[in-house]
């Protein structure tokens, strides 16, 4: 359980986090999404007790992070953004040291378990300074998992990993949900879609959206849109498409690509709930044009994200 209420953090006159409120339920995996410098790391540092909030409050497992910092910290496994490790130590002795500090019971077995889970067990004796970036990230992750804390706070856990490792880490994080309450920050969108049950998008220190990945998708689209590729003169095709019932707008060359071989791409928007795919197909065919492709167009999370975070700055500037 994590509860964040009206959290604010100023660095001098600069506002890093402005009045953030959100909850993370037991066993939930929350994606904390935002461009670089949005306030993700600051929020996480407040939750982990490293920085005090300037205003508002935050609770981890019922402990206030400012006034009951030690108790709250004992409930958290934290992977900071720049995985800080003692490079002169071996993986095992590093984890053993962290285990001591976390007051982990049955330390030897617990270190083994964490290494197993983060898939670093085969490098237990290696000196950390000689490990690759990906392996260090896993050592950091093993450190966060030590003692099986109820809350995990992971700041960009997949940064610097290769695609195969990214997939492995995402699987690991997904498997941690249910048992652990997880907050995961990232600026990479597919990551949250792949791992999180809920997303909080922040920009300039403010929450701009909070929902499940699916709902966010739906909410922001507001309309069904369908992408077509048709062979034929653009003006005439547009006219025919506009004639189909329920169609609200037609965009030619919506994907910004130049038409080749007489092909044109179109994006048709229609009222929500109306399935007009069949009508569109028959309209195109009976108009004498060649229908090459017809598919529902999803506004990807990427586009939603951009829309949200850039709108926000536009509003602020105006």
């Amino acid at each position, binding site marked *: 359980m994590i509860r964040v209420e009206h959290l604010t953090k100023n660095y001098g006159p600069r506002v890093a986090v402005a009045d953030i409120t959100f909850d993370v339920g037991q066993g939930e995996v929350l994606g904390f999404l935002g461009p670089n410098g949005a306030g993700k790391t600051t929020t996480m540092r407040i939750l982990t007790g490293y*920085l005090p909030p300037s205003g508002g409050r935050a609770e981890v497992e019922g402990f206030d992070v400012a006034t009951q910092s030690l108790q709250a*910290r004992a409930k958290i496994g934290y992977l900071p953004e720049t995985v800080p490790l003692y490079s002169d130590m071996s993986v095992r002795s590093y984890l053993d040291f962290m285990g001591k500090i976390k007051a982990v019971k049955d330390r030897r077995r617990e270190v083994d378990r964490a290494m197993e889970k983060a898939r670093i067990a085969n490098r237990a004796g290696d000196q950390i300074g000689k490990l690759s970036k990906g392996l260090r990230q896993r050592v950091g992750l093993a*450190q966060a998992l030590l003692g099986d804390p109820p809350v995990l706070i992971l700041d960009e856990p997949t940064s610097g990993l290769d695609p195969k490792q990214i997939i492995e880490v995402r699987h690991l994080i997904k498997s941690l949900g249910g048992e652990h309450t997880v907050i995961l920050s990232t600026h990479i969108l597919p990551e949250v879609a792949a791992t999180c049950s809920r997303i909080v998008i922040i920009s300039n220190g403010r929450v701009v959206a909070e929902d499940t990945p699916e709902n966010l998708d739906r909410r922001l689209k507001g309309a069904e849109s369908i992408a077509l590729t048709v062979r034929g003169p653009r003006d005439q095709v547009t006219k025919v498409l506009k004639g189909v019932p329920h169609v609200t707008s037609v965009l030619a060359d919506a994907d910004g690509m130049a038409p080749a071989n007489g092909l044109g791409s179109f994006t048709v928007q229609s009222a929500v709930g109306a399935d007009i795919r069949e009508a569109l197909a028959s309209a195109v065919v009976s108009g004498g044009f060649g229908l090459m492709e017809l598919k529902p167009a999803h506004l990807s999370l990427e586009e939603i994200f951009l829309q949200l975070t850039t709108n926000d700055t536009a509003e602020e500037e105006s």
Partner: protein
Amino acid sequence: MRNVWAVAQRELRSYFLSPLAYVVIALFLALSGYLFALILSSGREASLRGLVQNVSVLYLFIIPAISMRLLSEEQHTGTVELLLTNPVQEWEIVTGKFLASIMLVLVMLGFTLLFPAFLFIFGSPDRGPMITGYVGIILQAAAFLSIGLWASSLTKNQIVAYIVSFAVLLVFWLSDNLGQFLGGTIGQIVSYTSVNSHFQSFPQGVIQSNDVIYYLTLVIAGIVLSTLSLQSRRYR
């Protein structure tokens, strides 16, 4: 206390995993051996007084090298964030670091026991002043380390930490001269802060409580200031 010990153990191990500890110990032993031989051959007196009185000069250069990395490295690599987001408090880190560094110095001074051993083999030295002399140089090392620890809490850069602690130690080292130069009450106060004036009686075989209190005050001040300096991130 468990955290203090964990930090101290890790730090001590880290000292001996890097070449620093060996280089510093070797340098100290070479210089103090040279001093010992020089003083012994010129004075022909079976005592450690001459050596002990000059150890503080070696400390000026050696101690900052031991203390410079203690907190600056943790801040440089970000491991301090790791420690402080676990159930560890600032004073526990600082105290652990201090203990590790004083243990390194004890190892270093342990090797110098060879010098009195020689004296006992070839002469019959007075035992009392030797023991109090060692108490004195251990206390002095503790005070210097504590100041060095504070210097390393101020910066991420070890070189800067070295220079700051060297400069501060130099002030404490020179302050009795400065006090004599100033004269009057102010001069007396300045002289009182001198590490040297508080050291005079140890090699004579006398341990004065005000000297011990002076050194312990420096130790505690260093630890408290380092703790505050680590905590200061909260107000920035």
